[in-house]
Structures are given as structure tokens and as C-alpha cells.
């Protein structure tokens, strides 16, 4: 999965041909650790429809502050470089799928 940094953000998110979902996480956050394998499985499920990326908030504080992240895990969906919606906090895989569908089906 693509790890975003301030350097590659524009290329990977703003210039992406599909909507992009970004997982803001940190090593110290247990719900983030629980979400990681689910996020990985979802990336396979959505395939070409949605690009899955993540941001390590500890290593990239510029990105978390730029997008106003003050609670993690936080999933942010971008389309053509604009924020479309956010999903805050952990949710189980099937519930996450419904939330993501509700966002990308409207794009």
C-alpha cells in the first residue's frame, strides 16, 4: 500500500484518476492497529475503484495538521484532490464497507 508523505501527496492523491482513501494512523493507536488488516482487505475488495493509501501521522505531522486530523484512526476520502468525506474511528469490516460505499457511490 502506498505510504503518503508531503513529497508524494500531490502525485498520488491530487493527480489520481480514481477516488483515494487515506488512512491516518499511528503506532501508538490500538484501534488503528486493529483497522490496518481490515483496510488491507478492503483495498483488495475495491480494486481499481478506489485507491488505498495511508499516512503515518507521527512521521508526517504536516499532513495531519493540513487536513485537521485530531482523532485517529481517521479515513479521509479524496476525489480530484478535494476532500469528499471522512470516517472517524474504528468500525468492523462489513460496516466500513457500507460507509465507504455510501461515499463513493455518490461520486
Amino acid at each position, binding site marked *: 500500500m502506498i505510504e503518503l508523505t508531503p513529497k508524494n501527496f500531490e502525485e498520488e492523491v491530487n493527480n489520481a484518476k480514481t477516488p483515494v482513501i487515506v488512512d491516518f494512523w*499511528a503506532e*501508538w*493507536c*490500538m*484501534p*488503528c*492497529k*486493529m483497522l490496518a488488516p*481490515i483496510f488491507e482487505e478492503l483495498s483488495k475488495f475495491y480494486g481499481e475503484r478506489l485507491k488505498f493509501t495511508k499516512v503515518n*501521522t*507521527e512521521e508526517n505531522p504536516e499532513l*495531519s495538521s493540513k487536513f*485537521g*486530523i*485530531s*482523532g*485517529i*484512526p*481517521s479515513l479521509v476520502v479524496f476525489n480530484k484532490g478535494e476532500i469528499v468525506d*471522512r470516517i*472517524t*474511528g*474504528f*468500525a*468492523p*469490516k*462489513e*460496516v466500513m464497507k*457500507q460507509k465507504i460505499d455510501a461515499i463513493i457511490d455518490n461520486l
Partner: protein
Amino acid sequence: MEKYDTIIIGSGPAGLTAAIYTVRYNLKTLVIGQDFGLITEAHKVENYPGFESASGFEIMEKINAHAIKLGAEIVNDTVLKVEKEKKEFIVKTGSKKYQAPTIIIASGTKKRKLNIPGEEEFLGKGVSYCATCDGPFFKDKIVGIVGGNDSAVIAAELIAQYAKKVYIIYRKEELRAKPALVSEIKKNKKIEIINNTNVTKVKGDDVLKKAILDTGNDLELDGLFIEIGTVPVTALTDPLGIKLTSAKFIETAENQSTNVNGVFAAGDITTNSNNLRQMITAASEGSIAATSVFNYVRGIKK
């Protein structure tokens, strides 16, 4: 609809241990759980046999892998409804239905919410229930913590490492955390205790800006952490008529059965094990519930 011998609701220590046992009893087992439960909040567990020191999450990953290896089927989803149809239970999630003659409720407890206006709206925009997750985002900010128990005080101390000012807002006169913890934070110049006070509302624009207090004052804040204890997750039990205590825990017999035939319960959601509510008592109750399910299923299959 897929049929099982037992459906376990909850995938924390109680639910997954129950699954280890039911699978070994050759019962077709489904676990439906959202996560590993509140144990994952424990960064250091040093009293679980076999693990000198590990995080709750690490131990749960092992128990989870163990249950899967033995053949338990685990679905990561939220149960929305449980209904009884004749002698079977129908367990519904957002997308599917499952059926079994027995269920084990091991859904544990969850963090209590304040239930005040703005709490939901500002979740992730200043409102948080996880100090270890979100504390570092409040560097040089002003943060409030609601609560007076051990976790509220520990959260205050943790967040004070980052924030410039931390208020502990507690509804009573004296914090109820352990005296050693309280005297520790009283020494911390960044931490101020506001007692006999409730937060009645939170306000802001894109992000949280202030808390409205019942003393009539507003408190300017960038973050509000809510640490007011836990409540049992019993939303599913009411339609089945499961007997609860006044504090909404499930009343269970010594064999983890409830007052409803075919319904068993284990872990933090019950009043068994002398209300100890530890990982090991959850596991223990899970194993007893599984054995009771085995006896019950054998009885009805005869």
C-alpha cells in the same frame, strides 16, 4: 441462511475463548465481533498467565489466531438484531442473517458517552475517547478531560505531556481515582481540576472551540476527552427478554446460562466471577459458557 450450532456475539477474550472451546467440542461455530474489545486499551498486561508483559492487543491477536486455526469462523461485523423463531435464534447484521439454536453473548462493555449536544458532531474534531490515540495531536493546545476515575487522571497526565493546559472536569467534589494518581497530578502545574461541574454542551465551527459548563461558564478548549467509565453493551438483549441487573449487566447462573433457554453470556457483560472483569475471568467464563452450550446442544440433538 447459514446454520450453526452456536453463534458467539463478541470477539474479545470471552468470545474467542468460547470459540476455542466450542470448536474443540465439534460444534459448528460462528463468531460475530466488531473488534477485540476494551482489552486493547490496555497497553501493558502483566497478569495474564504465560505473558510476562504484553499489550492487550498482542495477546488478543494470539487468541484470535488460535481460534481461527482451530476452525472458528469469524465475521467482522456489527450485530443489529437477535430474534427468536421457534427454537432457533436469528442473528442479523447489516447484510446477512445467521441461525443457531444457541447464542453466547460476549459483547462486553464500551466507553460511556456523555450524551450532550455536539459530542457526536465534534468526534474526531476535538472530541475523543482515546487519550493514547489522540493526545499527541494536542501539542500546545488546551484540553479538557471529563471524569474523575483512574483513566481520567491517567489521561490528564498523558495529555499534559503535549498540551499547554489540561482541565479535569469532574461532577463531584473529590476525584475518585487512586490517591497516588491524584497526588501526582496535583503536582503538575499544567493540570487544573474543576470540581462539582458538568459539561452540558460542546460548540465550535469546523473544530471544537468550547465547552459549556453547568456553572454558567464557558471553557475555551481545543480538545475534550471523555473518560467516564464503561457501560455494558446490551442493546441486543432486550427483545429476547434477557434478565439484567439494575446496572444493565446480564444475570447469569454459575454455568453462564441466562434466564432465556439457549442464551448464554460470558465476560465483562455478566455479573459472574465476583465482578472482577479481567481478561482471565472473561476467558474463564467463555470456556464455561462453551461447555454449557455443548451440553445444551447435545440435549436437543438426542
